[in-house]
Each structure stands twice: as structure tokens, then as C-alpha cells.
């Protein structure tokens, strides 16, 4: 049977691997539709025929749950991610992020690339962390906000911006950037990617796929891409 999965775009490559593995093991098929969490959530609210929804933000999963579009009891926190500070180039020395870091000074008149700080989860988390550390006010005028984490990463990779804040999962696979610091866990709310089955799901295999996402095989793949698997 086919399972239609609506998943946040930042999961694209990892989930592809998981789905392929599942197909090989079970002869079922997972069809993956990647887009921004907001678009997917709205589509589910409008009756999209999705079976599984994996959101990049807790808020959108909350919204879908509130409108009664996910099956009660199926929601769980699937994955967690970490936020990192990256710099352009290969051999950049690491720094420590705390209240004393002169982030604005490191930038000079150049830009700090982030995802949209009011709208896209990675941006929201990043802003929260910098605010908690008391750095936000200084760097705010220097932030270049991209519409998603990947576009922010591209700015740093092309050295349009020397520094950026992205998910660790994104940073590890890009050759032209170096992770120079991890944000301390307490500086922002946990970065959680929840998953759930939709209320209207008809697929008999949906539940199985949702379960498979936490299976040992899947865990291995998630870890390979830098995700932390929650339970």
C-alpha cells in the first residue's frame, strides 16, 4: 500500500533514505511531498490526502492538531536538531558562544545569514538564542534573512555572508562551511520535529510507516544525517 507523507523540506534527503529502506523491507511505498511546514499544514487543513505529517515546527503541528486534522494519539516528537554557528571556508577556528562573544565585531560590515527570524523555525530559534545571550541587539541590523535554512546556508557557502546560523544537519553536508560553535542547549527552546498521522488517513500502512520512523534502521539513518532521534 502507498503512504503519502507530507514532510518539512529540511528532511528531504534523510527521509528519502528512510522511505527507500522501508519500501525495500515491506514492499509498501512511501510517497514523499516536501514543502514548507506552513504550506503543508494548511493543505492538510484543507483536506489534503496526506497520511503522515512531519513538521519542522511544533507550532504548525499544534495548529493542525487544534483544527482536528490529526488522528488523536498518533502525534509524537520524532526528531530533534541542534543549532550551530557556521563560517565560510574549511579551516576556521572554533569559537565559544556566550555573552562575551563579539559577533558583531566578527562580522564587521558584513552579514549574518539566518532563516527568517520571525517566520521560519531555524530563524526563530536562532533569534531566541542570540537574545538569550544578549547578542541580538548588536547583530540584528546585520542579519540577512533567507526564506529557508538552505538558502541561508547558500549565502555562507558562497561567502556572500561570512557567518550564518543553521541546523547542524544542514551544516555537516556542505563542504564550504565550517561549524565554529554549537549553541548551548538552554539558549533556545528544544528544536523538535513532531510527526503524526492525519485524521483522514485511509492507508492501512500509515501506522506502520509512522512506527518505522523510530525503528533501529531508521535511527541509524537519522543519526547519519545529524538528527537526534527522540522517544
Amino acid at each position: 500500500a502507498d503512504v503519502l507523507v507530507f514532510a518539512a523540506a529540511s528532511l528531504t534527503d534523510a527521509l528519502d533514505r528512510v522511505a527507500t529502506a522501508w519500501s525495500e523491507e515491506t514492499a509498501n511505498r512511501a510517497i514523499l511531498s516536501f514543502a514548507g511546514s506552513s504550506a503543508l499544514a494548511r493543505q492538510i487543513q484543507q483536506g489534503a490526502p496526506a497520511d503522515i505529517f512531519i513538521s519542522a515546527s511544533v507550532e504548525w503541528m499544534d495548529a493542525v492538531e487544534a483544527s482536528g486534522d490529526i488522528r488523536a494519539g498518533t502525534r509524537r516528537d520524532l526528531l530533534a536538531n541542534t543549532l550551530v554557528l557556521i563560517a565560510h571556508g574549511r579551516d576556521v577556528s572554533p569559537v565559544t558562544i556566550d555573552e562575551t562573544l563579539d559577533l558583531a565585531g566578527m562580522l564587521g560590515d558584513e552579514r549574518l545569514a539566518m532563516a527568517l527570524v520571525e517566520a521560519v523555525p531555524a530563524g526563530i530559534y536562532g533569534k531566541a538564542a542570540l537574545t538569550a545571550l544578549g547578542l541580538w541587539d548588536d547583530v540584528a541590523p546585520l542579519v540577512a534573512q533567507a526564506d529557508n535554512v538552505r538558502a541561508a546556508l547558500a549565502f555562507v557557502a558562497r561567502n556572500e555572508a561570512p557567518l550564518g546560523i543553521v541546523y547542524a544537519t544542514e551544516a555537516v553536508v556542505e563542504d564550504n562551511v565550517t561549524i565554529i560553535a554549537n549553541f548551548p542547549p538552554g539558549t533556545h527552546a528544544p528544536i523538535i520535529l513532531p510527526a503524526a498521522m492525519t485524521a483522514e488517513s485511509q492507508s492501512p500502512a500509515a501506522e506502520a510507516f509512522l512506527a518505522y520512523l523510530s525503528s533501529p534502521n531508521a535511527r541509524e539513518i537519522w543519526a547519519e544525517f545529524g538528527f537526534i532521534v527522540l522517544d
Partner: protein
Amino acid sequence: MWEAAANWLGPAEWQAVRLSLRVSFWATVASLPLGIFVAYALARWSFPGKQLLNGLVHLPLILPPVVTGYLLLIAFGRRGFIGQYLEAWFGIVLSFRWTGAAVAAAVMAFPLMVRAIRLAIEAVDPKLEAAAGTLGAPPAWVFVTVTLPLILPGIVAGAILAFAKAIGEFGATITFVSNIPGQTQTMPSAIYAFLQVPGGGEAAGRLVIVAIVIAMAALFLSEFIARRVAKRVAGG
């Protein structure tokens, strides 16, 4: 060699290419009659609400595609205020089908199509239409035998513009009908998906090249047709 070309893209990518062609073709062809009608009305008639219609036609151009997609979702989604009746009365479901992608592409391309055709209509000398009238041709016939052939280059230009736009349309499509492989994953959506993957640039690049080739072919065709028509009118 042919096989090498075929293998150059994976089956999922070929699927996206085929889907894009189908979506763009139908988006263009199905909206053409309405496009000609609206262009004619805007060019030649005056009626109350004309400016409103004109504005409405241009709306998809002005609004960010995401907004257009969102409005389409609200209107034509399965639970949308139009969509639910379409399904109940006619059994037509647009959301999350390729037909929905075609609707999104058609809506996005509509202003371009109408503008081109309208300009062409405005360039037709009304004296020729009047002459046809004196020979006994009723207005509809005048339109078909005089106006239509004379605006053919404009129609071709408008249609190709719309087709090209449909081939490249992304924001409204993904917002309205999502990004479901084989159903609604057009070339731009597939390119988007590739761009989300580190190292996916190469695969995206291949699809970009395919999109360019398709659009170029369409452009060549339109130039060719337009030139032939122009030559016929010039005499010979």
C-alpha cells in the same frame, strides 16, 4: 546514445518533466478561449466593472505566488468554498491532482496571455472589421474571419508566454497542490526538492536544462509561426 540521454535523468525526474509538459499544455490550451474573450472584452467593449475585471486578471501577477496559491487552496481545495461544490456537483477534484497544478499554472499565466492578446487586438484597424460588417458578416463572424487571423501572432505570443510561465511556475503550485511525485511534482517543484538536498545542485541543474530546452523549443515554434503569419499578411 538515445538511451544515454534517457538515463541522464532518473525516472522520477522524467516523470516531473512529463507532468510539467502536460500541466503547462493544458493550462495554456484550456485558458486560451477565455483569455481571448477577456482580452477582446477589455480591448473593445466598455462595460461597468471593466476596470475591476482588468484588475482581477492582473491579480496573480501582483500577488506573491504563495498568496495566489493560498487563495486557490481556500477557494478550490476539497473544503474550499468553490471546491466542495465542484466535487459535489461535477465530481471535479482539483486539489492535489495534476488538474489542480494546471489550474494554478493557468491562473498565474493568465495575465500574460491576456495582455499579449489584448495588445494585438488593439492593433487591428477597426475599419477592416467595419468593412467586413458592410459585406454582411455578423459580429461573431467578423471576429472569426478578420480579427482572429489578424491577431494570430499575438495569440501565439500570448500562448507561448503563458506556456513558458506555466513551465516555470512554482510558488502557487506547491502551495495549492503540494509537491506529490507523479501527481503534482512539476519540474520546478522537483528542482526545489533537489535544492533542499546538499549536493542536489547537479540534479537540479539537469532539470533546469530540460526546462530551458523545452521553453526554447516553444519559443522557436512561436517565432516560426509568427513569421509565417506576418509573411502571409505582407503579401505573396
